[in-house]
């Protein structure tokens, strides 16, 4: 819990700062913006309990969003996250009256492709700091590999993904149309195979956004 507090406390401070930020900025309707983020992800639920408990620092995402009006933007989102965890040697039941002593390695690569919408509740007020909430859904290309020692197999599949998130955009530059972005996303990924229930995760991201034209 302390770890999450460390992450979200700065976010709360930034929200507080937002009340004092009076720089005038306004999202332009019809603008196409690219958001690029570095991602850190934390497995949750079955994913954490049965496959990988370590967080992943190997991830990124990109959103291409069309500004419908000052408060709403919609577009597409793609990303990549690589989870790997190696467990110390242990004995596993690998069959009827069969045991295997091995180092177990689980590897999960996820590549979501989603339709995504962002709502910026203060989008019309022209402030430099804008909190937002987001939601998306689409297809998740999932590559699950499991190894006992150097022997293993892979399961490549396409699964559903739904995402809900929140964060802050901080505009900079002359036109204030570009900026920094930080936020968190909850990723719901059902995975009803091999006895698992889901591969849900919490993603924390930081990055940049800027207009393409």
């Amino acid at each position: 819990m302390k770890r999450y507090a460390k992450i979200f406390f700065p976010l709360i401070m930034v929200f507080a700062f937002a009340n004092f930020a009076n720089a005038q900025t306004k999202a332009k309707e019809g603008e196409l913006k690219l958001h690029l983020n570095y991602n850190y992800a934390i497995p949750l639920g079955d994913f954490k309990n049965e496959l990988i408990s370590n967080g992943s620092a190997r991830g990124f995402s990109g959103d291409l969003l069309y500004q419908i009006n000052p408060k709403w933007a919609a577009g597409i989102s793609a990303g990549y996250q690589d989870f790997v965890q190696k467990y110390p040697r242990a004995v596993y039941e690998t069959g009827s009256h069969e045991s295997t002593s091995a180092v177990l390695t689980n590897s999960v690569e996820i590549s979501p492709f989603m339709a995504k919408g962002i709502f910026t509740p203060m989008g019309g007020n022209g402030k430099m700091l804008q909190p937002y909430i987001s939601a998306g859904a689409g297809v998740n290309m999932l590559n699950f590999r499991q190894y006992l020692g150097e022997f293993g197999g892979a399961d490549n599949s396409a699964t559903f993904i739904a995402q809900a998130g929140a964060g802050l955009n901080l505009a900079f530059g002359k036109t204030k149309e570009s900026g920094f972005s930080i936020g968190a996303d909850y990723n719901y990924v059902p995975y009803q195979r091999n006895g698992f229930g889901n591969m849900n995760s919490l993603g924390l991201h930081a990055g940049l956004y800027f207009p393409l034209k």
Partner: protein
Amino acid sequence: MKNKIWLVPGIIGSLLFLAGCSKEPLQNLTPEESRIYTTSYDSSANFQTYKTFSIADSVAVIDNGTVVKEHSASDDAYINAMYNMMQQRGYLLVDKNQSPDIAIAVNRVYNTTTGLFDYGDYWDYYGGYWDPYYWGYGGYGYNVPYVFGVYQITEGLYSIDMFDLKNATGNHEINLIWNGLARGAGVFSNTTANEAVDAMFAQSPYLKSTN
């Protein structure tokens, strides 16, 4: 607003570079971590009732269907490790002529698989790399026979079998009652034998005589 579409290829390239930073699980394994030890047993066998055992003094090398007997340093190491562990578990070593209850055979197994790489795609685009005009034969086409590359992968393992000689007469057959497999990097090293056999016995606590 200046058009920034030109940024996209660079950004995509950067993201692909980041994707290349993914962690390859097998590259992070030491030889010890790469090895696995698998044991299986006949649940109808009562291992406590067996008293004596004998071990074949050489190893059967099973290489893609052919069998020869050999006797390398690592073979000796596996035979000695089995001898020691069986005695630790209370079984008595006897000569094979003294009607042992259990026969133990150590086997080295090689399995080679062969596959084909298809270079067809490479040749299909050859004309794009070296236009025949380059050689002074503009207008000609290349004619390349279909080309394959052959690869082979050989996997080796130690397999240790325990057979039930005690009940062979009554059963009219010699039943396999226990098998241990050692697979992975370095299993053919004589320094690995003790580690492998120790692991096999550690996960087989039922291997214990009442001697």
